[in-house]
């Protein structure tokens, strides 16, 4: 062991001989770190829960439908409304803030899909490659549509699970050629199973998806769209983003105030966005409280260390007489503050995570324990120990050994 290590060990031995003093010193910091780590654990849990809800319900997606306000009711048959065009989609993409992915969508029922002696009648969608992420879908086998499929107007299709089962009961759909309205299409992929929508009307598994260019030029052979779907970067911005899109499309379609629109913007319910809002306000408040507690905890350590320097001036003088350099003394007191702060942080982070996990288990809050609160506590307490330990350590190094050894009391 070198000199610094010996001094560090000596500090640990000294501290372990006076645990009640250490407990008193670290208390404030422990409270601060406990609140801080509970906020982090609950914050991360809440974020994760909301991200899960966003994934599951597509809360970050807004859909624009062709046709007017009557479209609140889901259309049972496709109408030939020629109001939405691809330029509208590009305008939304280019002009509306918080929109990161956009896909124009066409769809049509009554499409026949045949493989050898099997056939189904299903609904076909023409979409852009971004559609997969916007709708939170995924492929189970093969791949989704690509930009080069779009550019080539490729005759490729991704099949829903029900279509796949009907045509390929033995599996192995990917790579086969099926006939869609009598034209040959290569099966590029198969979607994961999704089931029906909440109302039980729309069957997500009973459909096929082809590139938008293919549907517009070949399969449906028409330019207008049924939908534009887009993703909003921040769930909390969904309502204002939907409003901006409404205004933009009204201008583009020449619809004055009070006139009925020829499109309909449907946004997801905003319940979770509001929940996220309250949670973040609350955690900002708790975060502020914990920062105050951390600073107070640091000040407590500093003041008790300053008191300890004057109480222990004789010890300092004695150590100097034994050969301690001024720098050894300041190192001793700095390490003492640092170790106390780290001990306070360790207890605090343990208490905070346990409390947050208990709240999570009781269903009062969402919690998720990661390494983050531990790293934050370590860094914060090391910084606090050093920052608030420097002043007492300097004072300790300045104690005059000759004067401090003069006193009479033992």
């Amino acid at each position, binding site marked *: 062991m070198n000199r610094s290590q010996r001094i560090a060990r000596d500090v640990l031995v000294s501290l372990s001989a006076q645990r009640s003093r250490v407990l008193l010193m670290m208390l404030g910091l422990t409270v601060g770190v406990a609140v801080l780590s509970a906020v982090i654990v609950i914050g991360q849990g809440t974020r994760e829960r909301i991200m899960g809800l966003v994934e599951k319900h597509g809360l970050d997606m807004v859909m624009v439908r062709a046709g007017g306000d009557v479209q609140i009711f889901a259309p049972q048959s496709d109408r030939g409304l020629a109001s939405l065009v691809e330029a509208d989609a590009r305008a939304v993409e280019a002009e509306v803030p918080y929109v990161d992915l956009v896909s124009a969508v066409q769809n049509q029922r009554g499409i026949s899909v045949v493989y050898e002696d099997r056939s189904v009648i299903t609904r076909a969608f023409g979409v852009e490659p971004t559609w997969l992420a916007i709708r939170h879908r995924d492929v189970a086998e093969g791949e989704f549509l690509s930009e080069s499929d779009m550019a080539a107007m490729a005759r490729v299709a991704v099949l829903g699970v029900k279509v796949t089962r009907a045509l390929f009961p033995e599996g192995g759909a990917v790579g086969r050629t099926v006939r869609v309205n009598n034209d040959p299409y290569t099966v590029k992929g198969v979607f994961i199973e999704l089931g029906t929508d909440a109302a039980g009307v729309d069957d997500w598994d009973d459909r096929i998806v082809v590139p938008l260019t293919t549907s517009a030029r070949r399969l449906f052979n028409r330019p207008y769209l049924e939908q534009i779907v887009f993703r909003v970067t921040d769930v909390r911005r969904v309502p204002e983003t939907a409003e901006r899109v409404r205004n933009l499309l009204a201008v583009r379609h020449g619809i004055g105030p009070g006139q009925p629109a020829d499109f309909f913007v449907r946004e997801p319910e905003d319940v979770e966005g509001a929940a996220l809002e309250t949670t973040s306000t609350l955690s900002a408040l708790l975060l502020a409280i914990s920062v105050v507690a951390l600073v107070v905890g640091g000040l407590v350590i500093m003041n008790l260390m300053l008191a300890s320097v004057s109480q222990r001036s004789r*010890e300092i003088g004695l150590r100097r007489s034994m050969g301690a350099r001024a720098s050894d003394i300041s190192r001793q007191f700095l390490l003492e503050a640092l170790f106390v702060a780290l001990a306070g942080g360790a207890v605090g982070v343990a208490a905070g995570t346990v409390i947050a996990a208990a709240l999570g288990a009781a269903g009062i809050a969402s919690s998720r324990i990661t390494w983050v609160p531990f790293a934050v506590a370590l860094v914060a307490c090391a910084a606090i120990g050093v920052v608030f330990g420097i002043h007492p350590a300097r004072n300790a190094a300045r104690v005059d050994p000759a004067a401090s050894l003069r006193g009479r009391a033992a």
Partner: protein
Amino acid sequence: MIEVDGLTRLYRRGTLETQVLKGVSFRVRRGEFVVIMGRSGSGKSTLLNILGLLDRPDGGRYLLDGADLSGADDDARSAARNRKLGFVFQQFHLLERASALRNVTLPLLYAEQDSGDSTERAERALQAVGLTHRPRHLPSELSGGEQQRVAIARALINDPAVILADEPTGNLDAQNGREILEIFRHLVDGGRTLVLVTHDRAVAERGDRVLVLDDGRIVGEEAVPTPAAGTRSDAAGAV
């Protein structure tokens, strides 16, 4: 071993000035037991602190083992305290929360090199002062005499050439005081240099030479008369 020449020390607090040392000169040879006597306030502790490199004189010269450290930095002076000097105080100055053994090992913390098994060295040092039992006791659980033995063992652990003792028997009863002086005599016989401050005539008689400090100057120097040597060997025989 120790050479001082014209040492002066002035304490200043505000406009209040106290000239404590007014030019102190003397020498101590290696292996000598020198006693510094003087009435209270004559500057004995001040002088000893300067000899111990805990304080710097305002003027004069001090050579410790041939080296002048008056202009040296804190690191060099601290290293010299650690290697060459051992202190014994009237108030023992033991760490209250540390066992006897840990108190004795403290100087090893500040040594340049690691000293191997510090516990073993501390046990040997305690043996040298005749305190083999109770190594795990706290100072508050030891008698005054035992506490001072622990303090001497601590002063010895780095094997210093010079021991500086400020009223080491001042807080002890006569019997314990005699025993502590026996230990010191042994150390000097073993080749160590000892400077001991006291105002007790009986204690002074155990030294080889007595310097009398008064009003900031050495006013007298006397070799201890021969009868003391006789007492000394009697006592040594009794230990």
